[in-house]
């Protein structure tokens, strides 16, 4: 029987404890000029008095800036959330509600690469268990940062790439049509500081078309074809 409450396989959404050390490290957080420009641009998208609508964008920017500063994907310490709240003149609890709701905001520190393996049914049927095994071999465990600080592993629910299952999201990129070897290769390249090809890993495939070439609209592959005469 599954235990209930905070799902053991899923990311822990509780904010990192508000300790004096955390305050000392992040209490003076402020947007750098570059991120501030982006934040103000996001706020300007909304009418006067509705600047709160930019909260999701600002949380994202804050998380990315934290990422730059810590050389990780970034996360949202409590003082940073408070900074965003004061930037938008919002009650902190309202910002925290947003931050704890969306899984894209990390509430705990993560590694340089945040490996999010999809474990939902289509990916599971297509072998996501092997992907977890691959990750495990590199010292990752769910909800923890690996010892070298390089990896964080999270099991996530459907990311909407079922046609190219199984898939893994690492930081901002998706890697699809994976096998254990292909993922291992990607991880090796990332560890070596190289950027692997994103998207599908199936040779010959461009995006989410069927493997082995298209099974419909075949005439469209080389040139634009008018099918209307065939109807």
């Amino acid at each position, binding site marked *: 029987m*599954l*235990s*209930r409450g*905070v799902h053991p396989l899923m990311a822990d*959404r509780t904010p990192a404890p508000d300790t004096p050390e955390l305050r000392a490290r992040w209490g003076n957080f402020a947007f750098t000029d570059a991120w501030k420009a982006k934040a103000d641009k996001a706020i300007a998208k909304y009418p006067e008095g509705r600047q709160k609508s930019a909260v999701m964008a600002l949380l994202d920017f804050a998380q990315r800036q934290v990422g730059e500063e810590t050389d990780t994907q970034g996360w949202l310490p409590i003082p940073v959330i408070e900074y965003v709240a004061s930037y938008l003149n919002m*009650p902190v*609890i309202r910002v*925290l*509600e947003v931050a704890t709701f969306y899984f894209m905001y990390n509430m705990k520190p993560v590694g340089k690469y945040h490996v999010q393996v999809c474990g939902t049914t289509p990916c599971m049927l297509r072998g996501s268990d092997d992907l977890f095994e691959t990750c495990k071999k590199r010292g990752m465990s769910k909800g923890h940062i690996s010892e070298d600080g390089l990896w964080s592993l999270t099991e996530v629910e459907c990311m909407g790439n079922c046609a190219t299952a199984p898939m893994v999201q690492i930081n901002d990129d998706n890697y699809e049509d994976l096998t254990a070897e292909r993922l291992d290769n990607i991880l090796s390249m990332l560890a070596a500081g190289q950027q692997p090809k994103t998207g599908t890993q199936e040779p010959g495939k461009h995006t989410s078309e069927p493997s082995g070439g298209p099974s419909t609209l075949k005439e469209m592959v080389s040139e634009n074809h008018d099918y209307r005469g065939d109807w």
Partner: protein
Amino acid sequence: MPKVTVDGQEIEVPAGATVLQACEQAGKEIPRFCYHERLSIAGNCRMCLVEVAPGPPKPQASCALPATEGQTIRTDTPMVKKAREGVMEFLLINHPLDCPICDQGGECDLQDQAVGYGRGGSRYTENKRAVTEKYMGPLIKTVMTRCIHCTRCVRFSEEIAGVDEIGALYRGEDMQITTYLEQAAAHEMSANVIDLCPVGALTSRPYAFEARPWELKKTLSIDVSDAVGANIRLDSRGREVMRALPRVNDDVNEEWISDKARYQVDGLNRRRLDKVFMRKRGGLKESSWDEAFKAIAKALKGKDKSSIAAVAGDLLDCETMFAAKSLLKACGSTLIEGRQTGMSYDVSNLAAVNFNSTLAGIETADAILIVGSHVRWEAPLVNTRLRKAVKRGAKVFVVGPQWETTYPATFLGNDLALLGNLPADVVDAFKSAERPALILGGAGLAKGALAACLGLVDTLGLVKTDWNGFNALHFSAARMGGLMLGFAQKGGMADIAAAKPKVLLALGADEMNFEPYVDALKVYIGHHGDKGAHAADIVLPAASYAEKDGTYVNTEGRVQYAEKAVFAPGDAREDWTILRALADALDVNVGFDSFAELQAAMIAEVPALGEEGLADYGPLPKADAKAKAEGTIDAYPIKDFYLTNPIARASTVMQQCSAELLHGEEMKEAAE
């Protein structure tokens, strides 16, 4: 006005009404958890499902569906019954069903509605969700496993209290209600979420495991912790008041009360005066009524008994004050005063010191100038009205030191000279206002700003045909009643001191300065061993507001009656009986022998006190064009919201609130 049919009954509902309201109008009971008429509509509990045609062929949440012309609503079909059973079963999946150990038991919406609309058993055999308790301060006890996520508490703190501190974190079945970082809910109205919570997730911490609702005797009473006169219900068991709850009165407190009104009641059992005390060789020693009365009579020996003064405290009912007045009159004295702290504003016209807009009316004001009032502490319920007014577009300006408002307000400064020279934006706001209002608070009255504010009636156009925007905001429950009974000297307390009375009756007067009365025999008639009793030569134990019938007049001049909930402890007597017995000891005749006779005499003298409702004080006085206010308001009279009266000061809960919520930061710093 759309016409709808509810279960075959055709009714006309007001435009903008919801289907749920239409059903209620038709007399149909619709179960609900998240819907509350004073909060915004959330529509997340799904308990209020009904069948509506035309519309999709499925049950609809009636609380969030507008009633429109020609709708046919069914609340009694098998589909509705099944839908309610289904929703209830889902709600109970994660509810612990620990009713036997839950304080909400017996007055729980979930319990009642599960009996009324549930299917009688669960088919759920998996593990239930468990949620850790959340700390919400000394007043609110949380058992969050019981929470059904109706979000009433979130909406209350955001919409009514104006303090965003409760929120719903996480998502889906992990959703949890909490305060930010589990900090204490720190505003004056926080405990109202306990009443709002339809289950036992938020219950009263001081009242935890004290009593069951069906064991309690319910008495209708009036709150005396401020001058709003909130309608409360005192729940008592035996001789003890267990808790105070708000009653619904849209004209006064809607259905809220302040935390002080709710939680000072434990002070009724602590530090009580339950015996007669007399000062002997410097210390207060136990004594007897006879001995005390003889000592008072001795001090007034001789033919002229008129050297006696009476000072009324802040919590007094009109009957006590009238009995004291009658006693002094019989002695030949008129030295009566209720403004203990020495205020001496002109009371020749009571309309000038009344909240004329009425409490319900102030929320329709569109420009408000507050002069010397920390409204949030002096009358939290008025503050929620002001917040409503601001939400409707009112502009608020404050003359006086900064305080944390729960709505946007402009602080103009501390200098009262501003009243004669208001900034242009204030003048503009009032010029375009249809219902402009001025609220003069205690700090303004103390600085003599009354005449200057009356001068603003004309310049700001505060009085219109159906609108009187001139308001004085008091914070003593006894104030308006006292003024109606003439408890005011021209020079205030200074006149009393100058008269050098031989006997001073301090009727629950704990805020006054006893220093000028060194030579007087100071008799304290009251219920708590507070400042007054410490200074007194003779202490006569009397009854608190919960222990006597009484008439109270709130700051808007509303006459209201409170009933006796319990008996006073020990030798303590109802105040009027003490004063009546004292009359015999002094050998004078006050003209009444029973409470009914006393009330009749009081009403004969001040007829308005005989009629529940707003007293009519007539039109405002003519303003003195030359009146000018001078000086600065440096501070507000209330230094500590939780400890403003002897009952609250005796209450452990109020002391804890003061220490934790107001002085918590200082304590933390001291600890470091």
